[in-house]
């Protein structure tokens, strides 16, 4: 049984894992890059070690250094979080070689599910439905892909074999634009994952993105914790998740849940994992991929089931049985998570960097904030723009929406631009309230431009701007008020210029 856990990650997820370890009485070891010296995970952990310069390649992706630090500090377990080394089978294998418990699945399961081509082949064998596409392992040349594309049909998606989080993903409407898109997808995949291989997949139109959380122990028990609705996306990046899905019914949940369990069993899966599905409007569902790690949006499942997923991960890695059987999993109420990103929703969601000057977190009933930033912390361009997750729980979906609206209004972050106004606009959208949306909703049927005509706050905004402008004018007038100096201003300027020549 391990006693000291190294967290091979940064930001909010590193903090989340440290919290679970603390509650379980485990010691924690943080690793950090040069720009993260003052990050919260470094401050919260029992020990902290420098990895290297800011770029991930030289810090959080340096498996060799991380393993050295584990040995040096006496950490006997590693939690990889999400991203970085979380889905690298070679890293999990090296941990095993060194006798360090990897808090995640076996290397063979990561390999089977990590390569999306192989994953599809595996689940097809287990009788799980998949989206039509190039099922075989990546490594297809552009020529081959261009040849095969018309047989899949347009529109289709180019996806990175090693991918995740929408990186290296491109939508293709016709064969004509495909060569250029292949190039840019490969380039992005190469820079993000060090692997430029891509594959093709039919684009299911009007699709919802619904995923199932599963937990599996090393004694052969596999359960699911229900679904998460993740259709609110932009550029294939999830922005908001909720559980349960407003689209789900009990029958479909049972069917998809058992398919999710079956998919996990097909690769002999152990630990926490997520099976992602596309669901079309007729409730046909297709296996999309399996994420062999903790998900960003795991808290909403925790809110409605009461299961601490990270604690359960640690329990599983210690070789113990799951704390729950499938029958004991009950869903209570509704949870929503908004991802707060450092980007400007009024300016095409351009990333925003800078120092957090001021931050006031929402609190109160049913509100949880997972974040790794605080006032004074610098948001750099090196890592993911997600700086916080705002999660609320309500007895019903309607109550959760009202609570999220309230919490978003309370949340103040100054110093960087955030997408909080995007979430506020979304909460006011009738389609969102009605649960009528698919994965294209944000890009095609949503706008930040709202009508100002009936908005009672326009005048207030005008007054506020005027007061600030007035204050500024007053201040500059005070600075340049004439005759306050003993010499005339002209003389003074002349002297000043001579001095600076």
């Amino acid at each position, binding site marked *: 049984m391990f006693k000291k856990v190294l967290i091979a990650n940064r930001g909010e997820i590193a903090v989340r894992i440290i919290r679970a370890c603390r509650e379980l009485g485990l010691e924690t070891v943080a690793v950090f890059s040069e720009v993260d010296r003052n990050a919260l995970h470094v401050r919260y952990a029992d020990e902290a070690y420098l990895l290297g310069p800011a770029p991930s390649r030289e810090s959080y992706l340096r498996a060799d250094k991380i393993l050295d630090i584990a040995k040096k500090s006496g950490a006997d377990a590693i939690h990889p979080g999400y991203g970085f080394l979380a889905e690298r089978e070679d890293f999990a294998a090296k941990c095993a070689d060194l006798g360090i418990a990897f808090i995640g699945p076996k290397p063979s399961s990561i390999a089977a599910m990590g390569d999306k081509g192989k994953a599809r082949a595996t689940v097809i064998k287990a009788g799980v439905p998949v989206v039509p596409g190039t099922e075989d392992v990546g490594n297809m040349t552009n020529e081959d892909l261009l040849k095969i594309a018309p047989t899949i049909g347009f529109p289709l998606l180019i996806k990175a074999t090693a991918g995740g989080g929408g*990186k290296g993903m491109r939508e293709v409407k016709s064969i004509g634009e495909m060569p250029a898109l292949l190039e840019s997808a490969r380039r992005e995949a190469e820079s993000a994952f060090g692997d430029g291989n891509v594959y093709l997949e039919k684009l299911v139109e009007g699709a919802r993105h619904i995923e199932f959380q599963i937990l599996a122990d090393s004694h052969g028990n596999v359960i699911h914790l229900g679904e998460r609705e993740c259709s609110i996306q932009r550029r294939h990046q999830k922005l908001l998740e909720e559980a349960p899905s407003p689209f789900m019914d009990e029958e479909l949940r049972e069917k998809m849940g058992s398919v999710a369990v079956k998919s996990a069993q097909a690769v002999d899966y152990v630990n926490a994992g997520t099976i992602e599905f596309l669901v079309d409007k007729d409730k046909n569902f297709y296996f999309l991929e399996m994420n062999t790690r903790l998900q960003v949006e795991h808290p909403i499942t925790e809110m409605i089931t009461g299961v601490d997923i990270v604690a359960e991960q640690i329990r599983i890695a210690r070789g113990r049985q799951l704390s729950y059987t499938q029958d004991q999993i009950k869903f209570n109420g509704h949870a929503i998570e908004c991802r707060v990103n450092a980007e400007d929703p009024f300016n095409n969601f351009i990333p925003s*960097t800078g120092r957090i000057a001021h931050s006031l977190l929402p609190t109160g009933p049913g509100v949880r904030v997972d974040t790794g930033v605080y006032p004074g912390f610098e948001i750099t361009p090196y890592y993911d723009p997600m700086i916080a997750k705002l999660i609320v729980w309500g007895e019903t979906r309607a109550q959760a929406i009202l609570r999220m609206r309230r919490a978003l209004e309370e949340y103040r972050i100054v110093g960087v631009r955030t997408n909080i106004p995007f979430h506020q606009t979304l909460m006011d959208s009738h389609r969102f309230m009605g649960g009528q949306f698919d994965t294209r909703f944000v890009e095609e049927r949503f706008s930040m431009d709202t009508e100002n005509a009936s908005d009672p706050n326009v005048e207030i905004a005008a007054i506020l701007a005027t007061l600030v402008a007035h204050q500024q004018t007053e201040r500059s007038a005070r600075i340049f008020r004439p005759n306050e100096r003993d010499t005339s201003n002209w003389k003074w300027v002349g002297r000043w210029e001579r001095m600076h020549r």
Partner: protein
Amino acid sequence: MKYITTVDGKEYLIEVVDEKHIRVGDRLLAVDFESVNGQPVFSVILDGKSYESFISESDEGWQVLMRGKQYQITVEDEREKRLRAAAGGGVAEGGEFNLKAPMPGLVVAIPVSEGQEIKKGQVLIILESMKMQNELKSPKDGIAERIRVKAGESVEQKQALLSVK
């Protein structure tokens, strides 16, 4: 001091009467105005009603962010307004597009070269920031000129990258 404040083409006549009072049109309002903690966050109590907003200055005037909405606002005093009216609207279009980095990041590639003919919508530079690659496109047809950066170079926000003439 009297100001003419414009939001989406609608003008408001706002007079700062003294420290505690303003006049909007012909209504006199009691005002209590504070900046929160020295931050660009402002709290105002107008005749007992409390509002808070984030306000920043941009090239086009003031940006007021309040209750999830952003308002683009220009504030002019009477003299400025008269001057602008006298100068007459409509500055001649320069016809040159200067591409500036919309965010700090790393130049991944520059798929165009100097003197090259550019079509509207063509990718000029690929900039990576926060793990996402962003394709910066040309808003007009023209000729690529004055490429000031190289692939692999880090750039600051608003740094000039190249021009399309």
